C-alpha cells in the first residue's frame, strides 16, 4: 500500500510546498514544532537507514576486509562479476528462490483457505484465529529448535508420516537428505507464518460488504460461484498484499537455516543468501563481497515486488 503512494504524493508535494511557502504567525510556530517532533527520527533514519544503504552500494565496489590493515582498494564491479561467476553464490540464489517459491505459494493458498473456512463458521472463530496465529508469536529460533527435534530420525515427523503412509520404521531423513532438508525448512516456515497471513485474509474478507454477497445470492449465486466471482476478485488487494509480504519475508529467511546447519544439517542445500551473507562477513570477513551480495538481494526483492505489482495491476477492482 505504501509503495503505491510514493509516486503520487511526490508530485502533490511540490504543489504543497509552493502553497505553504509564505505562511507565518501561529501556523509558522506550529510548523516549527512539527519539525522538532520529527527531527530525532529523521536524523536516525539518515544515519541508520539511508547512509547504510548508500554505504553498502559504495563498499560493494571495493575489495575490503574486516579488521584488515590493508586499505580498501577500488575494484569497480569485480565483486559482482565474481559473485555472478561463483557456483557457490548461484547455489545460494537457487536455494533462496526455491525456498521462497516453495514457501510463499503454499502460505498464500492455505491461509486463504483457512480464512475462508473460519469465516464460514459461526462458532469458534476466535479460537481458530488465536490457535493459527500462535506460532507467529514464538521466536524463530525456538521454532527451529522444536522442529529440529521433531524432524529427528526418531522424532514425531517420521512417526506421523509413517502412520499416514502406513510405512512403519522408515526414516525420511528430514535433515540429512538434501531435498528433504529443503522441504523441512519450508515446512517450518510455513508452520510459523500461515496463521499470520490467515489473519490478514480474514480482515480482507471482513471488509467486503455483506450487501454484495446478498445481491449475488439473489441473482442465484451459490457458495462456489459466489466465491469465484465475488469474493476472489474483491479480495485481490489483500491477496497481493499477502503474497508480497510473505514473499519478502521468505527472501529474508535466516534463523531456521542457521539453526539447522548449526544442528548438523548439510549446509549446501539450504545455504540461502542471508546465510551466505552472514558467513562471508563473519568467517571470511570479506565485507566488500558481502556488500555486493546484499545489494543483489535488495535488487531481487525490488524485482519480485515490482513483478507482483505488475502482474496484479491488470484489472483493478473498487468497491
Amino acid at each position, binding site marked *: 500500500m505504501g509503495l503505491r503512494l510514493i509516486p503520487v504524493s511526490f508530485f502533490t508535494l511540490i504543489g*504543497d510546498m509552493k502553497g505553504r511557502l509564505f*505562511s507565518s504567525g501561529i501556523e509558522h510556530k506550529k510548523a516549527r514544532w*512539527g519539525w522538532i517532533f520529527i527531527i530525532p527520527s529523521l536524523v536516525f533514519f539518515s544515519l541508520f537507514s539511508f*547512509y547504510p544503504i548508500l554505504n*553498502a552500494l559504495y563498499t560493494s565496489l571495493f575489495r575490503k576486509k574486516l579488521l584488515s590493515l590493508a586499505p580498501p582498494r577500488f575494484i569497480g564491479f569485480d565483486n559482482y562479476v565474481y559473485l555472478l561467476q561463483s557456483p557457490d553464490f548461484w547455489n545460494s540464489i537457487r536455494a533462496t528462490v526455491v525456498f521462497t517459491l516453495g514457501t510463499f505459494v503454499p502460505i498464500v493458498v492455505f491461509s486463504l483457505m483457512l480464512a475462508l473456512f473460519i469465516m*464460514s463458521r459461526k462458532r469458534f472463530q476466535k479460537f481458530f484465529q488465536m490457535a493459527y496465529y500462535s506460532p507467529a508469536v514464538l*521466536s524463530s529460533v525456538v521454532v527451529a529448535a522444536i522442529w529440529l527435534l521433531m524432524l529427528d530420525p526418531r522424532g514425531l515427523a517420521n512417526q506421523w508420516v509413517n502412520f499416514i503412509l502406513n510405512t512403519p520404521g522408515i526414516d525420511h531423513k528430514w535433515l540429512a537428505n538434501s531435498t528433504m532438508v529443503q522441504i523441512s525448512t519450508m515446512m517450518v516456515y510455513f508452520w510459523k507464518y*500461515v496463521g499470520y497471513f490467515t489473519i490478514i485474509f480474514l480482515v480482507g474478507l471482513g*471488509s467486503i460488504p455483506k450487501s454484495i454477497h446478498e445481491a449475488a445470492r439473489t441473482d442465484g449465486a451459490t457458495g462456489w460461484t459466489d466465491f469465484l466471482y465475488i469474493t476472489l476478485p474483491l479480495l485481490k488487494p489483500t491477496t497481493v498484499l499477502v503474497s508480497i509480504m510473505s514473499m519478502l519475508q521468505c527472501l529474508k529467511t535466516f534463523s531456521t537455516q542457521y539453526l539447522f546447519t548449526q544442528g548438523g544439517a548439510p549446509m549446501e542445500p539450504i545455504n540461502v543468501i542471508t546465510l551466505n551473507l552472514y558467513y562471508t562477513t563473519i568467517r571470511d570477513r570479506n565485507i566488500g563481497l558481502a556488500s555486493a551480495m546484499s545489494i543483489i538481494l*535488495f535488487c531481487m526483492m525490488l524485482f519480485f515486488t515490482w513483478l507482483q505489482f505488475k502482474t496484479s495491476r491488470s484489472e483493478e477492482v473498487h468497491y
Partner: protein
Amino acid sequence: MAAVQNVQIRGSPLLKRDLAVAKYRKRTKKWISTQSLIIDIFIWAFLIIAAAYILAPFVFMFTASAMPAGDITKMPYRWIPKGFYWQNYWQGIRGNDGSFIYLRNILNSLIVASAVTATTVFLSALAGFGLAKYQFKGRHLVFMMILATLMIPFEVIMIPLYLIIMKLGFQDSYLGLITPFLVSAFGIFLMRQYFLSFPDAMLDAARIDGASEPMIFRKIILPNSIPAIATLAILTFKSQWDNLLWPLLVAQTEEMKTIPLYIVRFTAEKHTDEGAMMAVAAIASIPILILFLILSKYFIGGAVVFTGKKG
C-alpha cells in the same frame, strides 16, 4: 423466500406439472442439504486438523521439556509425561558448563527489548504526531522518506550498520544491540495513521488554555493513544525478543549474548540432551505466550496495520 414459493405451490391449482416441480424441488433441496452437510463436516475437519498441526509442536515443546531424553525419542511419542522432570530446566538454566549464563542472557534480552520498545514507542509517537497534526513544508516528503525506509531490509544494511557500530565503539555492548532499532518506520506509520483520526478541536482547546506543544503531546496525545502504543510496544518487544542476526554480529562475549544466541549455542553443543533443549525453548517462550494470551487483541491488531482497514 422458500416459504413464499411453498405458499404459491400450495395455493395454485394442483396441476400435474406443479406437483412434479414441487417434488423435484424437494428432492434437490434434500440433495443440497446432504451436500452442505458433507461440506460442513469437511470444513470442520480441515480446521480441526489444521489446528492440531499448528498446536502439536507447542504441546511437544512443553511435554518434552518435562521428560528425560530417553522418553522423548521413544517411539511412539508419549504425549503425557510420567512426572515433571525438573532436571531439564535445571540443566538448561545452568548450562553445560555450569556458568548459569542463560540467566544473564535472559536479562540481556529483557534489557535490550525493553529499551528498544521504550525508545521506539516514544520516538514513533512523537514523529507520528508531528506528521499527522502539523502542517509544515516538506511534510509529505518526510513521510515518503520514512515509508521508503520500509523498503530497505535490515539484512541489506546490516554490514554498514556493523561498521558504524564498530566505529562508535559500541560492539559487544547494550548500546550496540539497541542503537540500530531506536525507532521504526513501521511504528511511525502506525502512530501517524492513528493520530490522523484524532480530533483537532481537542488540541486547539488545549492551546487556547495555554498548553505548549510538548505539553499537548504529553498530556493529551500519549494518554489517548494507548491502543496504538500497546500494539506497537508488543510488536517491537516481540521482534527484539526474536532478533538473531544482529546480536550474532554484535555480541561477542557470552555475557552480552541474548536468548536466541544462547538457544543456538545450547542446541549445537554435544552434551545437550533433547529435554534440556526444549526446557530452554520453553523458558524463552513462556513470557511471550503469556503476553499473547492476555493481549492477543494487540498482537492481531498489529498484523493488519498495513491492510489499511479496521480489523
